[in-house]
Every structure is written in structure tokens, then in C-alpha cells.
């Protein structure tokens, strides 16, 4: 499939508040993402990863600049249109334990169904194919509460797929998972980006794991946001500078982060 620009960020300033009392987190962010790209956001806590994700999903307003999804500014489309373009996965605790897995995924059809949320046959088949894409079809009649944390996260990803958006954003989707689940989720997302031609962007603290799986990295260094391909980012020492301020450096020989040697 031909690559096209899905997300365009221009001179964006993210932060909280309004007017003079606004707290700017990061200024002047500009980048563009194509369809089918798998992007990982790296940076220290408080660098602005979550703030950027919230701004991209329009939960939070930008202080300046512009975000365009599929060529249209986030500010100019209705909430319903927005939810058909950007889907989100968080690590929020939900009260949905008493819903069946397929009912949770069916909530992804919310932006498409009518006033009472009645599902058409097409909606139902979208839900089933979303479940099979994450490999959870046989658990569709289980309660969400009966699943492991990793499985629950897959269901939330299936919900995002059922939303049929070109862009999926995930805020630390692997945060509470054990190592096998983390790796599984990361590679599942990469596969979905490639095969379903989705643009997938997620924040994570799994730096070493991300270097081997991401197409591009969105790096939060020194109050700036930089987009680079993974190899570029390693060669240009940008990855190495990620945690420099915290006394942690990248050891190229080991391919791992180590504390700075005291001389």
C-alpha cells in the first residue's frame, strides 16, 4: 500500500492551563508520521510524553500550533469524527470487569452506532475480526475480569482496532505487564502497524526493547522532541543523550544503558 501522511504536527506547544498562567511542557514540536509506521516515544518521566499523547487525542488542548490527522485539524472536527480517526489505549483501571470481552471490544464501535448503540451485522463482524487480529477470539465470551493483565491489554487494543482509526495511540501500554507479555504486546503492535497499515504511536520505558522493534523513535531530549529512525537515533548519539541528565549513558558495545563512569 502506498504510504501517506496520517499525522502532522506543526509548531505545537503542549502544556497545561491557559493564557499567562499556562505551564508549557514542550515547545515547537514538529513532525509527520506515515501510515504503517510503528513509533515509540522515549524520554524521562515528566518530559511530556503523556501530555503529547493527550494532546494528540484531543483530551487536552494545545497551547499553540496545530495537529492534523488525515489532513484535518483536530480543532475543526467533531468529537465523533475524531473518535473515528484516533483511538487510544491507556492503563486506566476500568469498571468493566463485568462486561464480556466482546462487549468491551464492541464499545470500539461507539462512534459508528446510533443513539441507542444498536449494533449492525457489519459492526459485529468488525468486532470479531478485531478480536481475531489480537488472537483473543476464543475468549470473546469470557468476562474481562477473568483475563490476565496482558490479555486485558490485548482486548483494549482490539477495542482500538474496532474503532477503525488510521492512528492508534497508546500510553505506556506495557507498564504493568511481565516481560513475556511486554514483548508479546510490542510485537503484536508492530505486526498490526505493518499488516493493517495503521500508524501506531506509544510511550514506553522499555528503551532497550524498543530499539529492536520500533520503525522510528520520538525522543524527548532537553525540552525538545525529535523524530528519527531507530538506526539514525543510535548513530547520532541521540539515544545516548536520553537520560544523560540523570547520569545514565548508552554503552554501544553492550547495547545497553549503564551508569556514567565516575573518573
Amino acid at each position: 500500500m502506498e504510504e501517506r501522511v496520517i499525522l502532522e504536527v506543526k509548531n505545537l506547544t503542549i502544556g497545561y492551563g491557559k493564557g499567562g498562567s499556562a505551564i508549557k511542557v514542550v515547545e515547537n514540536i514538529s513532525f509527520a508520521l506515515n501510515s504503517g509506521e510503528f513509533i515509540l516515544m522515549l524520554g524521562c518521566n515528566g518530559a511530556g510524553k503523556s501530555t503529547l499523547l493527550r494532546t494528540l487525542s484531543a483530551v487536552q488542548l494545545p497551547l499553540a500550533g496545530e495537529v492534523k490527522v488525515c489532513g484535518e485539524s483536530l480543532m475543526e472536527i467533531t468529537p465523533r469524527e475524531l473518535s473515528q480517526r484516533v483511538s487510544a489505549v491507556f492503563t486506566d483501571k476500568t469498571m468493566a470487569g463485568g462486561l464480556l470481552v466482546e462487549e468491551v471490544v464492541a464499545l470500539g464501535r461507539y462512534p459508528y452506532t446510533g443513539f441507542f448503540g444498536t449494533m449492525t451485522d457489519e459492526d459485529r463482524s468488525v468486532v470479531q475480526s478485531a478480536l481475531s487480529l489480537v488472537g483473543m477470539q476464543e475468549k470473546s465470551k469470557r468476562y474481562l475480569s477473568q483475563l490476565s493483565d496482558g490479555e486485558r491489554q490485548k482486548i483494549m487494543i482490539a477495542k482500538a482496532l474496532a474503532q477503525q482509526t488510521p492512528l492508534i495511540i497508546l500510553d505506556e501500554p506495557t507498564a504493568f505487564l511481565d516481560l513475556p507479555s511486554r514483548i508479546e504486546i510490542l510485537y503484536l503492535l508492530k505486526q498490526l502497524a505493518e499488516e493493517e497499515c495503521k500508524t501506531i504511536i506509544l510511550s514506553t520505558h522499555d528503551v532497550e526493547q524498543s530499539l529492536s522493534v520500533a520503525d522510528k523513535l520520538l525522543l524527548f531530549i532537553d525540552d525538545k522532541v525529535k523524530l528519527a529512525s531507530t538506526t539514525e537515533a543510535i548513530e547520532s548519539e541521540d539515544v545516548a543523550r536520553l537520560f544523560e541528565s540523570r547520569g545514565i549513558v548508552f554503552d554501544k558495545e553492550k547495547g545497553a544503558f549503564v551508569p556514567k563512569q565516575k573518573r
Partner: protein
Amino acid sequence: MMSKRPLIILFVLTLLLFIANLFWGSVNIPFSDVLDILLGREVNSKMAESVVIQSRFPQAITALLAGAGLAAAGLLLQTAFSNPLAGPSILGITSGASLGVAVVMLIGGGALGAISGTMTSVLGAFIGAILTLGVIILFSMMVSSNVMLLIVGIMVGYVANSAITLLNFFASEQNVFSYTIWGMGNFSSVSFSDLPLFVIISLVGILLSILLIKPLNALLLGERYATNLGVNIKRTRILLLLCTGLLTAIVTSYCGPISFLGLAVPHVARLMTKSSNHYTLLPATLLAGSATALMCTLLCSMPWQSGVLPLNAITPIFGAPVIIYVIVNRSKIEYFN
């Protein structure tokens, strides 16, 4: 698809209890007489006719709608605050409504004192309920922990009750007495002529709750997910506030501050339907609320020695065990996890 069986069981149960309420009461009327009165046939006893038409029928309708309304209000609050232990009485909304009624009854008019549930006291209860709900929502933005929010609700309730105590202290003896009787709760205070107002306002509230089913389901995932799905959180919150405020107010102003129905019934409905999906859960909650209220009325007006028992003597006996059961078994109950 979901099983319809619990809904059918609840519907039949509600229907049977409604009929039982017409045939049973503190006054003994032969079965055949009640049947004749209901079928519009002439009966010998004018007294019996008046009891069935003027007293039992309005009381059964009141219990039917009040139970459904309070239960729906409880369910809406539990989903909106992501807290299975929320409810109109726990969050202080009932106390707020009571304060509104107290202002009307104890200050507003000595003459009004004897009657609850006039248009003014409905309005007073509504303003009281909405104001408390507003305060709770304000605090819910500051306090993220659910347990802490419940405690805030209980505190707000205490403050409302302290104002009520103060009003009582300065009110006339007769007003205090009628306020106290009202406070014990009963479904018999809606007279035949008040019935249309009560029915219309309750039905508006119940209808509004049904219209909120779709966003309520999305809210099960939490506000951030709901926003991403396109739910207008602000508008939904305002509608939820109006709906729970209206339902709590109309029931409280006529029937008194009834405890436990709003808190416990949604749990009974969840356990019966084994689902948190509001498409089944809301109808089940409405029916279970009606059935519970009708059952309580029946128990209150069983031929006891001293007339009719106050409602608030019965509802905790149903409600408290349900809540304790749910808390003790929460690790085994799906919707808690």
C-alpha cells in the same frame, strides 16, 4: 446474546407483588371484594372501595415507581463515579433533598407542615439534591480516590443533617413531629390526586436514565476512554446529575429519605443478570427496584398490631445484607475486578 431470563423473572415477580399489594393490606378486605372493585363491579362496602382505590392503588403505583427511580439513581451514580458503593443516600444526595424538604416544611409554612409532597417541597427537594450533587461532583474533580470521595459524600450528608437539626430545633412541635414521621419513610403519602404529578416526574427521570444507556456503557471504561470514544463528558455529567437529582428529589419529597434501595438494588440486578452491560442491567435494576419496594410495602402494611410500619425500618434489613455479601465476596464477583 444476553440471557433474557432474569428480566422475565423480575418482570413476573414485580407484577405478582403489585397485585399482592392490591389484595393485601393492614385492613382486611375479602379477596372477592377486591376483585370486584378492580373489575369495576358494585360492592357493598364503600369503605373497602375507598381503601383499594384511594389508598392501596396509589401506594402500589408509588412503590413501583419510587423503587425503580431510586434504584436507577443508584446505578447511574455507581457508574458515573466508577464506584460500586455509591448511592443517593451514601453520597449525601438524599440528605440534601431532605434539607430542601425541611426548609419548606419547617420554615416555609406552618400550614404545609402536615403534608409532604406538595409542589413546593418537590422543588425544595430537587434544589437540595442538585446542590449536593454539584458539591460532590466538584469534590470528585479534586479527590481521585473513590473511597475518599465516599467519605466526602458522607461528610456532606452530615453537614446537611446538621442544618436539618438546627431547623428542627427552632421549629414548632407539630412541624417537628410531622417532619419526623415523614423522615421514617412511607409509600402511602402520595394521594390519588397527587398521583399524576408523581407519576409524570418519576417517568421523566426513568426515561432520561434509559436515554443514557449508551454513554453509561462507555463510562465503564473510565472517563479518558469514554472521551476517546466520542462521549461528551460534560453533557453526560449534567444529564446524569439532572436525572439522579430529579429521581431522588421526587421520591424523597413524597416518601421521605429512603435508605438502601439505591445502593443495594443495582447489586442485586448485577448478580442476577451477571452483567455490567446497561442494556440489560438498567431494565433489571428498574424491575428489581420496583419488586423490592413493593415487597417492603407489603411487609410494612401486614396486619401488625399498631397499623403500618415505617419503611425505613424494613429497607435496611434487605439492603445491608446485600452490601455486606457483595463486599465479602468482591474478589469472586466479576464487576469488582
